């Protein structure tokens, strides 16, 4: 069975505002779904809804043709989410943070040292995360993406606080992930150039 993420008829109302209405999409392996829009347009909310963290006004999200809410654990086992807040503990060191994340997931083939080298943070391994710059912390979050070794990536503004090299790294990682048969949903306020099939949703 091939993996597939799809959604039908999504409508979300927050307060008095309708963020999106009757939204449909389908995403196959190797494809990128780009959610474009200004700040506050509902990109993050849509990502949270895909992750099964928001209850929608109407509509349903499907993973492998079955509703996400009926198989939450399986679905969560297949995704990793890079949120606006990194979700890393400032008081723990980089390695402790990543080890904890890894301990909640199945044994991954990716080695921690190799991944840290890849995203350029191996020098910082023993430092508490608090002492790292914002850009370095984003890189740690990227390392978590690669370490998780799962088919679906949810990325919320992955380019923020990164320098040129960092932004290039993100593009590279996403492209690699897609060519190896992964899927990616990305929220961004500007267009991105990625060498893959891209579906665009404007919010």
């Amino acid at each position: 069975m091939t993996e597939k993420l799809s959604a039908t008829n999504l409508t979300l109302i927050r307060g008095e505002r309708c963020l999106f209405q009757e939204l449909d999409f389908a995403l196959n392996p190797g494809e990128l779904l780009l959610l474009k829009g200004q700040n506050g347009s509902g990109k993050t909310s849509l990502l949270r809804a895909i992750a099964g963290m928001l209850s929608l006004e109407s509509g349903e999200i499907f993973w492998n043709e079955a509703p996400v809410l009926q198989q939450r654990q399986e679905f969560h086992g297949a995704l990793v989410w890079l949120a606006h807040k990194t979700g890393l503990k400032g008081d723990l060191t980089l390695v402790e943070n990543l080890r904890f994340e890894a301990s909640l997931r199945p044994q991954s083939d990716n080695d921690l040292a190799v991944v840290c080298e890849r995203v350029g943070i191996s020098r910082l391994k023993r430092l508490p995360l608090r002492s790292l710059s914002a850009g370095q912390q984003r890189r740690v979050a990227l390392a978590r993406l690669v370490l998780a070794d799962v088919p679906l990536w949810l990325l919320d503004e992955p380019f923020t606080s990164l320098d040129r090299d960092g932004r290039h790294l993100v593009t590279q990682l996403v492209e690699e992930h897609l060519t190896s048969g992964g899927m990616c949903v990305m929220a961004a306020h500007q267009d991105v150039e990625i060498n893959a099939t891209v579906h665009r949703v404007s919010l």
Partner: protein
Amino acid sequence: MKATNPKQPSIFASLIAITRRDLLLALRRPGDILNPLFFFAMVCTLFPLAVGPGAEQLTLSGPGVLWVAALLATLLSLNSLFMSDHEDGSLDQLLVSPQPLPILALGKMIAHWLTTGLPLVLISPLLAMTYRMPVDVIGVLMLTLLLGTVCLSLLGSIGAALTVGLHRGTALLSLLILPLAMPVLLLGASTVSLAADSELYATGIWALGAYAVLALSLAPYATAAALRISNE
């Protein structure tokens, strides 16, 4: 093609992992452990100052004062149970983790008890002695506090999960938790009083134990549900 690896780590392993993480975090910030303890000692000191240092009065009010102080100290620490995780986004990461959320919540509760409830139990004999409590009664006090703080950590986490992310969370948390904690206080304090009067007190211990078992089996689910709701 990337396939989802079906072999998840065992539930027990993830329980250990999250407890370990929270304990490590508490060790890096010892203040979070010490503050409730100081608060506990302080409340116990305030009381004799307010009602007078008479020996008879102290023996009579000792169990009650120690128990109320322990309850308030636990309450004080509950506010931060999910707060920092909510602020740095790691709570969101736990919500999308492939492990069952009740287990993760239970792990956090265990860590909370180990860093708040257990230290309270351990320093309670010191304060009990200042209230002229006999040694065998101190044993009963420690036993009731041991069971009682477990109940309070479990119950409190439900309230903390319901109020996480709310602006007026702190005051609301006390309003939600205190009525729920009342049976624990009542059972705990009167069991110690019974022991002090050298009467049979086993019923109270059993009742507290039953309460702890009930809370242990229900609170993780309620907390998990509450966390999902308040992070929508």
